[in-house]
């Protein structure tokens, strides 16, 4: 096997709760690097797309080639995405339609449960070891359809809320805002596998 530079997790830090992800990994003894530009993206080997506002992120990506570099990155490298990050990766986005990287074979509906008053913290069923998991849903999207290669790891009312396809692990909720670290640990396990 070819030797590569040591693994380094980046956290996209153009907008959103990137600090919460950095703190989650720090709690597991893993350092991360904030990524705001294409040159910073080139320094990392895997990436977290945090929660935030997907429309704002799309606008901020359209600067200095970051969108092009990121499109290539998410199709080839390990990525952990939560909420807005999951929307950015989807094959198809509705309510309303918006552009996306189509790296994850899902169809996703934005703000699917309503507005902030409909945000909720719920236990969800998961196939990750350890039983039901607390999931923080904030103006959350809903995954309407998944492709054949997408594995569903947790559900809410029958809809997938945590999915994996190849090197991508994506949640419609915010594991970074809970104390349960199973999602971040699952991502570290994926990094070890690849």
């Amino acid at each position, binding site marked *: 096997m070819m030797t590569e530079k040591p693994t380094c997790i980046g956290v996209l830090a153009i907008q959103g*709760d990137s600090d919460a992800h950095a703190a989650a990994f720090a709690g597991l003894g893993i350092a991360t690097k904030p990524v705001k530009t294409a040159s910073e993206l080139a320094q990392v080997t895997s990436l977290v797309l945090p929660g935030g506002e997907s429309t704002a992120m799309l606008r901020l990506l359209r600067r200095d080639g970051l969108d092009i570099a990121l499109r290539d990155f998410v199709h080839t490298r390990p990525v952990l995405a939560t909420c807005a990050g999951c929307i950015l990766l989807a094959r198809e986005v509705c309510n309303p339609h918006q552009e996306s990287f189509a790296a994850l074979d899902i169809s996703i509906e934005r703000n699917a449960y309503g507005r902030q008053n409909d945000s909720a913290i719920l236990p969800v069923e998961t196939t990750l070891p350890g039983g039901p998991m607390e999931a923080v849903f904030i103006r959350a999207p809903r995954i309407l359809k998944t492709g054949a290669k997408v594995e569903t790891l947790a559900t809410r009312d029958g809809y997938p809320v945590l999915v994996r396809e190849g090197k991508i692990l994506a949640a419609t909720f915010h594991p970074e805002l809970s*104390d349960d670290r199973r999602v971040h640990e699952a991502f570290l396990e994926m990094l070890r596998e690849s």
Partner: protein
Amino acid sequence: MSEMNGNHTSTGLRLKIGLAEMLKGGVIMDVMNVEQARIAEEAGAVAVMALERVPAMIRAEGGVARMASPKLIKEIMAAVTIPVMAKARIGHFAEAQVLQHLGVDFIDESEVLTPADEAHHIDKHAFTTPFVCGARNLGEALRRIAEGAAMIRTKGEAGTGDVVHAVQHMRQITKELRQLTVAREEELYHLAKEHGAPYELVRMVAKTGKLPVPNFSAGGIATPADAALMMQLGAETVFVGSGIFMKERATPLDVENDAKEREEAVSRARAIVIATTHFNDAKIVAEASEQVTGTMKGLAAAAIEERDQLQTRGW
């Protein structure tokens, strides 16, 4: 206040602070109509604040400033997919009840509107909708957090385009936070009294060195460099009120009918968004500043009599 301690934070408060977390690193823009809201969203705003008049107009026109009309708020909520905030008068919990009923995503209990109660702020724990409140110093911030605020912003001096008071308030809050972290355990009781803030919150902040809710900045931010300044001083997000859509002191740009004025508003909005994200990179802030055509004229805050200041409302 033990429910605010890490794991023990109540579910409702965690959800409120959770939304504030999602807004970090972004710009929240004041808008007065659907077209402005669309411009804000397209430019990359993380949320909009629906208002009848921006602070610069309230300042120029006078009169009693109240909650915006539900009709306007609903139109703006229908026009954009990003969170919509709206302002209630200080202490006016019935306006806040209306805003919660409408489904706004955040309520700003704001000194920009004419206060409705001279002694009491709204009991924000009684609501499911999160609240943001203004503060000039740590004590004021902690009093609002004790009442249930999920986000604090500097008051600054709204509607001026003069950033001097936002700077003063942010420096004051971060300085007082730093001082708490080096205080001895027995000094905290006295400091709680000095700040007029609950001891439990003072002790928590002394341990962590930061507010238990996100700390944003507002009040006079008008340019990309202003946004970068506030972010470098420790703001986690900025509110831009009159700085994007105002032409003269009390006249907004006509974004609905004048293509050139619309383009001016778009250029200001985009530039402030970029500068807020890349606040530490002067090259990018310079590029963004160069894209801006025109700037709000503004009003030097030092020229405002103390009785005409908005920031002295609330306590």
